């Protein structure tokens, strides 16, 4: 039972049923005893009436109406003076006064013996099973409603428990439905005492998280400024030094390449920090993925011509909801990787399509590809295939892609491309969602 409501309802109904049914059984037994006493009194009255009838000379035939359910005998000094039809010839039990049970005529009987004056003994008898049946019918009427109303009380318990758990549900809904970057305090209207502590702890946790995220965000922007400035200064100095050195000096070439790589790494680290799903405040808008790809591929074109690589764009308009800047970064990183890792004259194809109403972005190349067992690892930070430091990549491009995919609630998969290299497929949600 994983639900508090189900657990409470089952336990409460069980406890309620147990207690009320045991009480009902006790009531039933007491009522049956009282009914038996009442019927015994009636039996004693019947013996009185029989005695009176005998004394007054009234025919006792009036007593003999309940055919087969009632019997009597009148004895005096061992002689049977009078008996109802169907009563045995032998005495029904002994002649001492009082109630007892006797068996005759195939039934069990409740008898009452009355000793009157001049040694006359009046014995009246009533069938025990019928007496019990009558009493039970009466008592059952008070027990049955309890049984029949049990489902109603269970339903009431279900509703009341649900009502009682409403603040908890409200709290859970507030936490579940809030955006991932919404760390404002939760507010429950008139929270019960049991929940106040939980709400306070949750709000305190949210406040600490918000402060931590803010610190991280500020660190990223400060780091951007602090790292970019000296790099720019370094570039200026290198430019000045270039004027004093002969053109194509190897040391200067190496220094320029190193600064460029550092510049790229800093930009990638900042992109990675900026695109973190927990920190980013994406600006979503309706856009056409195909048009966006056109812009990005056009801008990336010069990178491919240097290595005589062929870049193509295929597909048709694909409307979707997304952050244009982030999507440009995403495709830019994918193209950057393709340009870096594919050999000269390789073919790179970007295609946009709609599959079952969902936009899909595909980037295929004819490069070396990625072995299946390494495909998941390329999304790890600073992971470079084969651990080689041969390429100029920072090992952050695919991590940035993964962040942007998460922000767009999309799904990314790496497959074998029909061009012979790696195929990247990104399945975006439909525009309306």
């Amino acid at each position, binding site marked *: 039972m994983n639900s508090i409501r189900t657990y409470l309802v089952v336990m409460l109904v069980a*406890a309620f*049923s147990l207690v009320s049914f045991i009480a009902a059984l006790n009531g*039933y037994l007491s009522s049956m005893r009282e009914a038996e006493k009442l019927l015994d009194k009636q039996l004693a009255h019947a013996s009185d009436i029989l005695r009176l009838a005998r004394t007054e000379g009234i025919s006792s035939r009036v007593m003999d109406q309940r055919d087969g359910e009632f019997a009597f005998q009148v004895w005096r000094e061992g002689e049977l003076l009078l008996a109802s039809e169907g009563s045995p010839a032998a005495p029904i039990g002994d002649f001492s006064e009082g109630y007892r049970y006797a068996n005759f005529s195939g039934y069990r009987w409740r008898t009452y013996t009355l000793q009157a004056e001049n040694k006359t003994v009046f014995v009246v008898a009533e069938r025990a099973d019928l007496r019990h049946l009558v009493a039970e019918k009466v008592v*059952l009427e008070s027990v049955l409603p309890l049984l029949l109303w049990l489902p109603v009380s269970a339903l009431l318990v279900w509703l009341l428990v649900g009502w009682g758990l409403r603040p908890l549900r409200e709290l859970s809904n507030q936490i579940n439905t809030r955006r991932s970057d919404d760390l404002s305090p939760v507010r429950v209207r008139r929270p019960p005492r049991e929940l106040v502590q939980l709400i306070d702890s949750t709000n305190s946790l949210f406040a600490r998280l918000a402060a931590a995220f803010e610190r991280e965000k500020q660190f990223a922007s400060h780091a951007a400024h602090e790292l970019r400035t000296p790099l720019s200064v370094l570039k200026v100095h290198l430019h000045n030094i270039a004027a004093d050195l002969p053109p194509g000096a190897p040391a200067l070439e190496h220094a320029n390449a190193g600064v460029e790589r550092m510049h790229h790494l800093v930009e990638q680290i900042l992109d990675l920090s900026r695109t973190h799903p927990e920190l980013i405040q994406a600006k979503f808008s309706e856009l056409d993925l195909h048009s966006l790809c056109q812009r990005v591929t056009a801008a990336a074109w010069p990178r491919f011509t240097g290595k005589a690589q062929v870049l193509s764009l295929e597909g048709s308009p694909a409307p979707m909801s997304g952050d244009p800047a982030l999507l440009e970064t995403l495709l830019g990183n994918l193209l950057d990787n393709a340009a870096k890792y594919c050999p000269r004259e390789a073919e790179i194809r970007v295609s946009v399509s709609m599959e079952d109403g969902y936009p899909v972005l595909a980037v295929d190349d004819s490069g070396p590809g990625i072995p299946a067992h390494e495909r998941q690892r390329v999304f790890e930070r600073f992971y470079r295939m084969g651990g080689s430091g041969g390429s100029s990549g920072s090992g952050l491009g695919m991590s940035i892609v993964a962040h942007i995919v998460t922000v767009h609630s999309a799904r990314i998969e790496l497959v074998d491309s029909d061009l012979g290299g790696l195929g990247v497929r990104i399945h975006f949600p439909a525009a309306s969602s």
Partner: protein
Amino acid sequence: MLINSVVLVLREVLEASVLISVLLAMTVSLRLSLRWLLLALPLTVVAVVLFAFSLDSMTDALDGAGQEVVSALLQVLVFVALVCVVFVATRVGRSASVMAQPMAIFMALATLCALTRECSEILIYITGFATSEEHRTAVFAGSAIGATIGLSVGVLLYAALNSLPERRVIPVCHALLALIGAGMVMQSSMLLEQVDWLPSARQLWDSNVLVNEQSLTGQLLYAVFGYEATPSLLQVSLYLGSVALVVCAWWAGQVVGSTVDAA
């Protein structure tokens, strides 16, 4: 009639619900799947239907002792399954993935046999009175009350077992299974004694003064722990032997577990 129906149905339902509650509490505590219950319930329905259809021939079999012997056999099977549950449960703590399946099979077997016997008894009783108009209401009402009380006790027992500290749940469940299992053996011995398959021996004591066998408490104690106010030496031996067997199963599970772990 109402009170008779309550007692009879309560006796049967209580026996089953206590057993299932203990097995459920063990399942939850050992973090096993509830598949055994899903397996046992439909099989019980099939078994009860078969039981009902073959009731006449079963009653006439073995010189009129067929029904009692089948009931006794089912109870002994429940006991055997419970002994296996205790043995395997001790091992589950060590290698859950390996022992989960045999555990589920033994739990399902115990539940199937117990439910088949008890549901059949209730079915025979209720169908016997279904045609009697004057008793029908009392019998149905009594049966419903008895069944509800029995189920409620089972549910509350399950909650009580679950509220125990984690390390106490399994030992308490084992102790309850030992008593329930021994009670089953005791009941089966009484049934076999009724049909003269076991000799009627001299009674060892009479505890009717303390708890009358025919009282409600006596009947319920009989249902859960096989209470007998005037037991014979054979019955007492069987009861104690059954408890000892469950303890041995627990001990054997521990020893085998330690040996395997050491290897």
